[in-house]
């Protein structure tokens, strides 16, 4: 059973027909086919209409029925809440309510969430609908926002491959220090390669990468340099 609160929620069309200025018979007939609520602001009447429709299904028995509400952001939420509390006492077994949460104050939606047993957010993929728990809605919102705003023609996001590549770059040692052993940057060498044994320079013997962590000064001896233990005073030729 459908109670139509969409076609004529304030009774404007009804008033127009009553006034006699309206002459389109076919349109009038199409309106009168379904059960139309002509004043949604009168919630008591709306409530009794729903009960009437529900009871109409079973006669006067004790059976229960469900109510599904597709609201387009009804403005009288506070009053709706009061009615909803009342509904719990009556013959209605369950209520399904589609609510646009961004249209209402946070307190209204959270009160409704307290009242409800199941609350779900969802997003729609190309072909099917995925339901997620409410807590991850913020993530969804970000995803949607990113998808809807193609403002610049440059690519500002990183692909997965680019993210992995960025994680592998060794920063200069003063930018490290997140608890891991500090690594000295050697240009052209990435983190994974640094683990293998390497040979450095001509006069120095091979040095393992693990030794980097001890803070040694690494010095490459050029062939032109003098030996450090020479007896000659290097400042002899200065004429002071």
């Amino acid at each position: 059973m459908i109670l139509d609160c969409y076609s004529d929620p304030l009774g404007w069309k009804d008033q127009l027909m009553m006034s006699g200025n309206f002459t389109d018979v076919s349109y009038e007939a199409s309106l009168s086919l379904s059960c139309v609520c002509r004043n949604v602001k009168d919630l008591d009447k709306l409530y009794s209409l729903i009960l009437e429709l529900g009871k109409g299904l079973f006669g006067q028995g004790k059976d229960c029925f469900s109510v599904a509400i597709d609201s387009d952001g009804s403005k009288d939420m506070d009053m709706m809440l009061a009615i909803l509390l009342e509904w719990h006492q009556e013959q209605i077994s369950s209520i399904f309510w589609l609510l646009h949460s961004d249209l209402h104050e946070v307190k209204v939606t959270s009160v409704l969430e307290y009242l409800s047993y199941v609350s779900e957010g969802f997003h729609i993929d190309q072909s099917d609908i995925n339901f997620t728990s409410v807590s991850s809605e913020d993530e969804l919102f970000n995803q949607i926002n990113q998808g809807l705003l193609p403002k610049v023609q440059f690519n500002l996001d990183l692909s997965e491959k680019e993210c992995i590549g960025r994680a592998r770059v060794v920063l200069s040692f003063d930018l490290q220090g997140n608890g891991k052993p500090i690594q000295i940057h050697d240009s052209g060498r990435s983190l994974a390669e640094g683990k293998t044994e390497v040979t450095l320079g001509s006069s120095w013997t091979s040095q393992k990468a693990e030794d980097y962590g001890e803070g040694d000064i690494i010095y490459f001896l050029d062939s032109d340099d003098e030996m450090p233990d020479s007896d000659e005073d290097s400042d002899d030729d200065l004429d002071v």
Partner: protein
Amino acid sequence: MENRALNLLDEALGLDYQTDPWPLRGKVVLIEDCVETSGCFVLHQLLKRTLSSQSPNNTVIFLAFSHPLSHYDRILRKLGCNLVAQRENGRFFFFDMLKLLCPDEKEGKTGKGGFTALYWKIQNTICALPENNKNHATIMIDDMSLMEVAARGSSDHVLDFMHYCHTLTSELGCSLITLNHEDIYASMERPTFMLQTKYLVDVLIKAEPLATGLAADVHGQLTVLNRDFCNVKGSSKNKISNFHFKVKENSVEYFYPGTRT
């Protein structure tokens, strides 16, 4: 055949695939602009496009809250469309709403005057159309922020009116094209009015200034979000298009970013 020359806006709205039935039939279109970049030209273009389309049944009901008829007539003349002649042919109905002021709350309850009467006027106009034209009516509103002013700041009245116009799109297959200014609501924490109208909308056209600042040969960018867009193969999905524009004396140029030297 000027109207056959398609541009990026027509493509984004799906006007390129077919003209009958009118692709915007039963749809609600919202044009959103800001002080820096006016979106009026999109409304003018759509008005011209609707009246000069291949389908001779298209009818436009124009609710003008911001300008008199002479303003639109001058602009549309430059675009190659004579509004006065169209009005005489019964294809263009102009409702001058410049002086509309809704009655006070107490008087409003009687249902006389204000938006209720305006809605009745629209419904009667549509129902008085010849049978073939009834499903091809387009309601245009310029603009919604001034409707709020006419309603003495009560956005609920405007939303009620919009809701009733929306019932016309689903019951009679009319289309509804409105203009609104986004920056009016920028300072509000929860712009309910704006959000609520967006829930009604099928196509959202956003006119914004360039993200990179002012430029001499580009006036701004348009983002068109087309929900339930049907392509040639019949599959439907959301479609987003983004392109730049330049408003000229009697036409508008649309182009993709970076394609102008």
